Every structure is written in C-alpha cells, then in structure tokens.
C-alpha cells in the first residue's frame, strides 16, 4: 500500500509539471504615450482559433497572461474611451515553459487630448472597483439612473456596407472626416456609443440620457406608446422602450440621414436606420449595452456593438456649448 501511495503522489506532482511544460506566458508593462502606467486597461491574447484570454493591468500597468498554450497569438489592448487607441500586435509567439516579456506603449486616440477624454483612465480607475447590487425602482424595475462613463466595444467587428456606403465611407476617411457633423456643432451619433459621460434619469414613464454633445438629451418613452406612424425625421429619432424581464430594450426609428454613426468609424446611413439598444445592469457598477444597428439600404448585415459602461457617481455632465468659440472651421480651413 505504501508503494501505491507513493505512485499516486508522483502522478499528482507530474500533472502541474506537464501543464507548465506545454504552456507559456506573456507579461509586461503597459504605458500611455506619456509614459504613465496604463492601469486598468485590458490586455487580450487571441489564439489561432479566435479564442481570447485576457487580464487587466494592475496599478503599475503590469500584466501577466499565464497558462497560454504554445503558439501564435494576437496581443491587443482595446481602445479606452477617447484616451488611448487600440493596440494590436499579431504573430506573437508563446513558447512552452517560457514567459515572454512584452511591453506595450499605447498611442493616444485622435481625440485624447482634452478634458474628460484625457482623464478617462483616471476616472475609470477611480470607480472600477465599485461594488454593490443593482438598485431597483419603486416599481421593481432595474434602475439605471446615475452617471455613467461609457466605453467602446473592446473588439468591434467591421461593418459590411453596400457599395455606395463603402464608397462614401472611404471618401470621408480620405478627407480626414472633415465634414463630421459634430465639428460644426451639429448633433452627435444617435447610437449613443461615444465613449464619454452620460447621465441617465429614469422614471416610470421615461428614460432620459443627458450628455455633453448636441443635442444634449434624448428621451426614451417607457409609457407603452408606439412610434408615430410617420415621424418627422430628426437627428436622434423617436425612441420607445419596453422591459424584457430585467433588460430594457430601446427601439429607435425616425432618424434623418445626416448623422455619422459609431465613433472612430463614422458610417453613413439612410432614413431606414433602426437602432435597438438592450440595457442590463448586472451590478451597481456596470451597465451592459448591446447595440444593434440595422439599415438595409446601407449595411449588408446589422452592425453590432457590445459595450460596458461604468458607474461614476461622483462625476457630472457639464455644460458644453459647442457654438462658443468653435475653432473647427478656422483650423481645418474648410469653408
């Protein structure tokens, strides 16, 4: 019997050795373009099968992705708000039994220069460990009220567009997106996916988003009404919501064709645009939002975005008056 026990012990000891032998790790430090530690950012390793392993950088910006099968990976860091641009390095080779040192320097996002944009990481890290249960309204519904810091889809899929839309999008890109409505103090994207602050004010009958961009608010009617049969097209459209258990499903139609959709992509669309947003609050700190963008005259298939907003109870939406001292036309020499 003593011999059997010894045998078992040897096998148990061998298993971890075997696992380590076939596995490797990637570790390093993530910094911003300013050289500051990029605490709180997510580092992802995508294997050949498209499967992700991920870890969040600590307060020193350090990360360690362990237990990776030997092979080739794409190492990426999703865009964080408007502060840092997406980082992606394909063909990173992980060897069995070794730890690859892989430091990452994030580039600034195009817009990561002022105000909340620049402060994104500080604000994110200030609130990311907020714990608690999702509150409910007196009627027993999840209550989404409060301040939220939005973020982008960590792994956005490219839109598949009809030829006219693809051509229009390329035209915009080639002209450095100079006709973007917000640069002329016109309204921002009706998909509400811009990664900035939003305040939600929810009552039994109404859910309002307040935000710093024009037109500064959106009303979603929760009182059971339908869309008007022939709405006047507007930038933000007409939004109604209904509850599917604890998920609020917002449905928007009646939009004009002037807005540019999805930050950093700026897609065109027609008046057939139809946006479905699904809001769920799994806990106090998080709001998970699935956005589905349909427009059969623009997209070959619906465009989806899956984002997570962070509750930032000490922050506030500030007064932003675009028409006050807007320098776009002057600086871009667009007349």
């Amino acid at each position: 019997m003593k011999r059997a026990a010894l045998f078992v012990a040897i096998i148990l000891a061998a298993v971890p050795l075997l696992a380590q032998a076939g596995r490797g790790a990637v570790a390093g430090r993530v910094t911003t373009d300013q050289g500051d530690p990029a605490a709180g950012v997510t580092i992802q390793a995508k294997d050949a099968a498209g499967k992700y392993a991920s870890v969040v950088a600590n307060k020193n910006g350090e990360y360690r992705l362990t237990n990776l099968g030997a092979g080739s990976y794409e190492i990426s860091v999703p865009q964080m708000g408007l502060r840092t641009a997406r980082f992606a390095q394909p063909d990173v080779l992980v060897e069995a039994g070794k730890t690859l040192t892989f430091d990452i320097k994030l580039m600034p996002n195009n817009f990561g220069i002022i105000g909340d944009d620049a402060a994104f990481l500080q604000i994110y890290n200030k609130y990311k460990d907020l714990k608690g249960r999702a509150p409910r309204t007196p009627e027993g519904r999840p209550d989404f009220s409060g301040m939220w810091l939005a973020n982008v889809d960590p792994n956005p899929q490219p839109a598949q567009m009809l030829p006219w839309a693809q051509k229009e999008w390329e035209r915009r890109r080639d002209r450095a997106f100079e006709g973007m409505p917000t640069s002329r103090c016109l309204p921002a994207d009706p998909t509400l996916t811009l990664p900035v602050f939003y305040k939600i004010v929810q009552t039994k009958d109404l859910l309002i988003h307040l935000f710093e961009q024009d037109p500064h608010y959106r009303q979603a009617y929760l009182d059971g009404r339908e869309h008007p049969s022939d709405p006047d097209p507007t930038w933000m459209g007409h939004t109604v919501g209904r509850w599917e258990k604890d998920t609020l499903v917002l449905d928007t139609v009646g939009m004009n064709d002037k807005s540019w959709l999805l930050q950093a992509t700026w897609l065109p669309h027609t008046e057939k645009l139809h946006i479905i947003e699904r809001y769920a609050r799994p806990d106090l700190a998080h709001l998970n939002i699935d956005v589905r963008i349909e427009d059969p005259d623009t997209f070959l298939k619906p465009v989806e975005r899956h984002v997570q907003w962070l509750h930032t109870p000490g922050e506030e939406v500030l007064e932003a008056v675009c028409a006050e001292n807007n320098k776009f036309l002057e600086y871009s020499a667009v007349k």
Partner: protein
Amino acid sequence: MHIRSLVVILLATLAGAVTFAQSGRGVLKGTVRNADGIIAGATVQAKRQATSEMFTATSAASGQYEMPNLPDGTYEVSVPPLGLATARFTQQNVVIEPGKTTALDIVLAAGGQGVIGDDNAFLALQKKYANVRGPAPRTRDGHPDLTGVWNGSLDPNPQPAAMLPWADEVVKQRRATNAREQPSAHCLPDDPTPTLPLLRKFVQTPTLLVQLFEQDPHYRQIFLDGRDHPKDADPTWMGHSVARWDKDTLVVDSSGFNDKSWIIFGAGLPHTEMLHVIEKYRRLDLAHMQVDVIVEDPGTFTKPIERHMTWQLAPGEDVLEYICNENNKFEANAGLN
C-alpha cells in the same frame, strides 16, 4: 323712537348709497381679436389712472369681455401679450362715464417673434388645454409633482428693471442695434431665467428636477438632494441650481453664472457674474403652475427684478428636437457677414 321710522330711515340710507354708487359707475365692453379672428381667454386690464386701481376681465369664447361696474374716470386699458403670439395692447385715456357703456374693441397685433411654430401656436395650445382640470399630483414622497410639459407665459405686468448707469447704457446700445448680438441668434444659450414663453418639460425624481427645453443648452439640472452650491463654481451660462421645498413650493436657487447671457425675455438685460436667481414653483392644480422669479445682481440692478407668471399644462405636447446650428440664417439675414 318709533321702530318703523328707524327702518324707513335705514332703508332710505341704503337705497341712497346704491343710487350714489350706480350714478358713479359705468360699463366697459368689447371684443378681443387679432388678425386671425376672435381671441378667447385674453386678460383685459383697466387701470383707473387717478387711483391706479386695477380691474380685469377675461374674454369669453365669443371673444367678448365686459366690466360692468367700473367707477367713473379715465382708464388705461391693456391686454398683456399672449406668449409670443400677440404683442401688448395699451390704450390710454379710455373714459368711463356714470351710467353709460363705453365700447372698446381690441385688435391685438402680432408678437415681435410670433411667426413660426409654438410662437404662433400659443393661442391654439391655450385653447386646447383650457379645460384640463384636477388636483395637483404628488410624488411617492408626498411633494407636489411638477413633472409635465408646460407652456410658459409672460408676466402680465412686468416692472421695468432699475439699473446702474453702465447697465442702462448697455440696454440702450442693444436696442439701438436691434439686439443683433443676442446670444441665441448665434446659437448660444438662452436666458437662464424661466421667462421665455415657450414649451418646456419638467421631469422630477426625488433627488433631481430636469428641465428640457428647445433652446440651447437644451436642458438644465436642479439638484433636490440637499447639496449646496460649489464654493467656487466654474461660471456657466445656466449656472448651478439647487432647490428645497418650502411646504408645497419648490424654491430653486441658482448662482455661478457667467456674464454672457441676456436675461429676462423681452428685456435682454445685461448682468455680472454676481447674478443670483431665485425661482419659486407652485403647482396650483393639475393644469397650472405659479412661477415667481427674483433676479438679483448688485453689480447691475439697484433693486431685485421680479417676474410673476402662471404656466399652463400642455399634456399632449412635447419638446421637439431643435438644432440651432442647422441652417441658421441669422448672420446671413442680418448682414453680419
């Protein structure tokens, strides 16, 4: 003393008093209309010039008004503006003679900006919701619920502002240039005082009152959670607003303004960053809200300015999306380019 004589004397005295009164009184009547037809619900005011006594009547569905019992004398007859739809009407030296009827038909001119949209629809909205009745609703926590879409109105008898000389000069200058530098003409925010007679929506929660409106900056937050103003607020167009309940009146206190806005609709007054605005909202019943505004600024006014308005609930309306920067023709039409 004979009881019957006393009664007779008393009766004679009473009859004498009535006769005397009637002999000193006359009637003012007429119809209120504008270019589009008769106007119901207009307030007609008659101010007796000798005593400043004010008498009022409201025009009926037929447009007719009547003041059957005015002391004789010379009057100033006026009709305050109805939103932005009609301009103020004033007629001096209307004579009321004892025992006679003075006829005065009133034709209201269009309001200065009464040309489009809600401006012109003010009268239609007033009529459409004239029969909304009921008690003022309350929230779960027992306070009046101010939630709803409200059609703003003007103070029927606004008192002129008493200003320091620099401010008088600025107002003169603004008038002389037809208010062309008015911020809203350049898609900048409107007046932080709630004096623009247009639709606005109130959404009230236990800790917040959100006001949505069609003009920039499109919304305003009033904190009901007991917080104070920040010690050193960044000056903004709308300022920082906190409120507390004084019984059933919500008292809103705002400060932290920049000095750029033109305040008080129709007056376009300047002000400094010392501006302090107090608003008192009291929902009288389902359909009406009493709004009292006190505007203080020792750097501009020699005494506080007050405005007193009654707003009407417009439950079937909503605030619409309005994008000033889209096709704004002001600068082109005003020849500023």
